[in-house]
C-alpha cells in the first residue's frame, strides 16, 4: 500500500535504479574510448539568446563531425554546454561566466572550450582560464583588452595566451567603421553613443579615436542605459548638434530602442551605424522596417554565408538545426575545427593530452577552416584581421525577418 512513509522509499529506489540504468545506457561509447570534454560557454537565455544559440549550433556541428568521422582516434569529444546568462541580468552575466569557467577548470576531463560570446564574460573568465592554463577560443568576443599585454596582469596572469579568437578585435572593428565613414561616406562630424557595456564602450572608444585621427569632428559622446525605455532626450540633444553621422557601440538591449526612436527624430539621410552588436535578429523582429533601413554594422570576420564555397556547410547546418547560420556560427565552427585539429595532431604525434599540450597545440596551429587559414599571434588574436560591413536594406524577395538576406554585404572595411 502506498503510504507517506514508504512513498519516500519507493521514490528513492526508483531514482537510484533509473540513474544506474541511465549510466549504463547513456554512455554509448565504443569500448575503450576516452572522453575529452569541450566546454561551450555562451549566454543561451536572455537578451542575446538567439545569436548565442546559432553559435552553439556551429560549435556542436564541429564536435559532432569530429566524432562521426573519428577525427581523434581513441577519443570521443563530449560538449559541455554552460549558460553564461542569468535571469536576474536578463542577459550575459560575468559572475555566472566566472562560475562556469571554474566549473570547466575543475573538471579533469575538460581540455578546452569554445566561447564566450560577450567580452564582459571574457574579462571575467580569462584570468581563471589563465591560471589553469586552460585554452578557450572565442568566436565573437571582440574587446581588445583581454589579449592586450598591457592588461596582462589582469587578464592573463600566467603570461601564456589562453584567450584565442577566430574573430578579430574592436581594436580593428571600431576603426574600420571610422575609416568607412570617413573615406567612403565622407562624414565630416559624428556623434558617438555607447550602451555602458564592456563591448559597447570599448568599440565606441576605438571608433572615436580613429575618427579623430581621420579628421572627423566628434561633436559629443554619451551613454545609453539599456534598461531605460526612452532615449528621446539624448536624440533631441544629438539632433540639436546636427552631426553628419551617428555611431553606436553596443548590443541590441539599448540598440533596438535607439534605432526605433531615432527614426522619428534624426534625419533619415544621416548615416547611422554600429558594430557587430547591431547585426542581430532583433534589428528585424523588434525594430523592423522602416526604422532599421539604412543602418550600417560591421562584423569582426570575413563575410562567408553567401560565399559559394561555404554553401555545403550552410546546407548541413540548416538541415541539422533547422535555422540559418550567421557569420559567427561559422567562426564558432572554425573554432571547433581548430580544437579538433589541435587535439588530433597531439594524438597522431603520440603526445599526452592535457591542458598544457592542448593550449600549446592551439597556439602553434595553422588550421584550414571556412574562413581560410586560421593562426594565432602570441597573444591569442587571429592573424587575419578582416572586418566586413553590412547595411540593412529591405529585400522583399525574402521574409523581412531573414537575418541573412536583410543585411546587405557592402564590402570589406578599408584598413587605414
Amino acid at each position, binding site marked *: 500500500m502506498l503510504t507517506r512513509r514508504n512513498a519516500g522509499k519507493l521514490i528513492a529506489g526508483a531514482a537510484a535504479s533509473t540513474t544506474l540504468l541511465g549510466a549504463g545506457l547513456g554512455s554509448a561509447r565504443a569500448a575503450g574510448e576516452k572522453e575529452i570534454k569541450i566546454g561551450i560557454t555562451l549566454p543561451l537565455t536572455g537578451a542575446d539568446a538567439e545569436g548565442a544559440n546559432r553559435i552553439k549550433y556551429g560549435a556542436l556541428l564541429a564536435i559532432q563531425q569530429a566524432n562521426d568521422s573519428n577525427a581523434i582516434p581513441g577519443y570521443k569529444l563530449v560538449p559541455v554546454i554552460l549558460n553564461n546568462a542569468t535571469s536576474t541580468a*536578463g542577459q550575459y552575466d560575468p559572475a555566472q561566466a566566472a562560475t562556469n569557467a571554474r566549473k570547466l577548470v575543475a573538471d579533469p576531463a575538460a581540455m578546452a572550450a569554445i566561447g564566450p560570446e560577450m567580452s564582459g564574460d571574457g574579462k571575467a573568465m580569462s584570468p581563471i582560464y589563465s591560471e589553469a592554463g586552460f585554452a578557450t577560443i572565442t568566436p565573437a568576443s571582440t574587446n581588445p583588452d583581454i589579449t592586450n599585454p598591457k592588461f596582462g596582469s589582469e587578464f592573463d596572469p600566467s603570461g601564456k595566451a589562453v584567450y584565442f579568437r577566430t574573430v578579430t578585435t574592436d581594436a580593428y572593428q571600431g576603426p574600420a567603421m571610422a575609416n568607412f565613414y570617413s573615406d567612403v561616406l565622407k562624414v565630416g562630424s559624428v556623434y558617438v553613443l555607447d550602451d555602458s557595456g564592456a563591448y559597447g564602450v570599448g568599440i565606441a572608444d576605438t571608433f572615436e579615436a580613429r575618427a579623430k585621427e581621420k579628421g572627423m569632428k566628434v561633436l559629443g559622446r554619451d*551613454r545609453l542605459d539599456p534598461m531605460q*525605455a526612452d532615449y528621446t532626450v539624448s536624440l533631441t540633444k544629438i539632433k540639436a548638434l546636427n552631426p553628419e553621422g551617428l555611431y553606436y557601440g553596443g548590443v541590441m538591449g539599448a540598440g533596438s530602442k535607439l534605432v*526605433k526612436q531615432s527614426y522619428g527624430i534624426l534625419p533619415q539621410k544621416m548615416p547611422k551605424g554600429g558594430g557587430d552588436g547591431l547585426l542581430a535578429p532583433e534589428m528585424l523582429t523588434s525594430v523592423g522596417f522602416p*526604422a532599421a533601413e539604412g543602418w550600417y554594422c560591421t562584423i569582426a570576420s570575413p563575410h562567408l554565408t553567401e560565399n559559394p564555397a561555404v554553401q555545403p556547410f550552410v546546407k548541413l547546418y540548416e538541415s541539422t538545426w533547422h535555422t540559418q547560420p550567421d557569420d559567427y556560427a561559422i567562426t564558432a565552427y572554425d573554432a571547433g575545427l581548430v580544437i579538433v585539429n589541435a587535439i588530433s595532431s597531439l594524438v597522431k604525434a603520440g603526445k599526452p593530452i592535457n591542458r598544457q599540450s592542448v593550449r600549446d597545440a592551439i597556439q602553434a596551429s595553422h588550421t584550414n577552416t571556412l574562413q581560410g587559414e586560421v593562426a594565432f599571434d602570441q597573444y591569442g588574436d587571429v592573424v587575419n584581421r578582416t572586418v566586413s560591413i553590412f547595411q540593412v536594406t529591405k529585400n522583399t524577395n525574402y521574409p523581412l525577418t531573414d537575418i541573412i538576406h536583410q543585411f546587405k554585404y557592402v564590402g570589406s572595411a578599408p584598413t587605414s
Partner: protein
Amino acid sequence: MSETTVVTQQVINGLSLGGMYALLALGFTLVYGIIELINFAHFNVFMIGSFIGMWVLQAFGLSGQSVLLTGLPLAGALVAALIVSMFGSGMLGVAIERYTLRPLRGKTGSAGGTVGMITTIGVSYILFNVILLGFGADTKNFPDPLPIIQFKVEGANLDLRVILIWLVSIVLMVGLWLFVQKSKLGKAMRAVAQDAEAARMMGVDVDRAVIMAFFWGSALAGAAGLIFGLYYNFTSFLIGYTAGLRAFTAAVLGGIGNIPGAMLGGLIIGLIEALGGQFIAVKWTDVIIFAILVFILVLKPTGLLGTMAPSKS
C-alpha cells in the same frame, strides 16, 4: 535647431516621460494609501498589462508598423485592448492579494509593513521571470496603429500621443479621485485606510475594500502598460523594472498615498530627466533624480504634497 526649439522639445519630452511615470505611479500610490503596502509587484503587473494589450491588438490583426484598421474599427480595437488589459491586470492584482497578501493579514494582522513589501518583491520577480522564460528576452514589436500627427510648437514637435497620454492620465486621476471621494466603496476604502479595525467594527467589508483597491490599482497599471506600448511601439520583460524605479520615485516625491501627488511627482521626474539630460548629460540622470529626491525628503519627509496613509491611533 535654435536654443528655444531645443528647450521646448526637451520640455515636451519631459512632459511625455512625466505622463508615463504619473500614470504608473497612480495605481501604486492608491494601494499604499489604502493599506500602507509598498506593492513592488505593481510595476510588473504594468509590464504584463502591456503584453496583454499587445496580444489583443495582434488578435485584431494589427501588427508592427502597418496600419490595417482605421476609424471606428481602430477605435473599437483600442477600446477592446484597454478593457481587456485593465480587466486582466486587475484580476492579476486581485489574485496576488488573495493568495500572497491576505494570508499575511490573517497571520500578522496587517498586509502592510516589511513582510508584505518583501512578498511583493518576490511576486514581482516571479512575474518578471514568467514572461522572460515564457516569451523570450527580446524586445517585442508592439502594434503601431495610431496615426502620426505632430504639431509644431516653437519649432519643436509635439506628437498627438503626448497629448493623449496626459489626457488619459488626467481622466484616470480624476476618475480615481471621484471614485475614492464620492462612491460608497471609495468611502469604505478611505475608512479602511484610516483604521481597518474600526472600519470592520462599523460594518465595513474590509476584505472587499482591499480587493477593490488592488483591482483598480492593478487595472490602472494595465492601462499604463497598454499606453506605454502604443507610445513606444515596443514592450519587453524589462519595462517594469526601470519605469518602475522612476515611477516609485515619482510617487514618493509627490507624497506616497497622495493621488495628485503622484501626478505632480511624475511631472517633476519627467522634466528633471529631460532637462537634466539636455544641460548636464543623460548618464547623470539617475544621480540627479535621486539627489533631488533625497534633498526633498530630507526637507519634507512626507513628500511634496504630503502622504495620505493609514493613521495610527
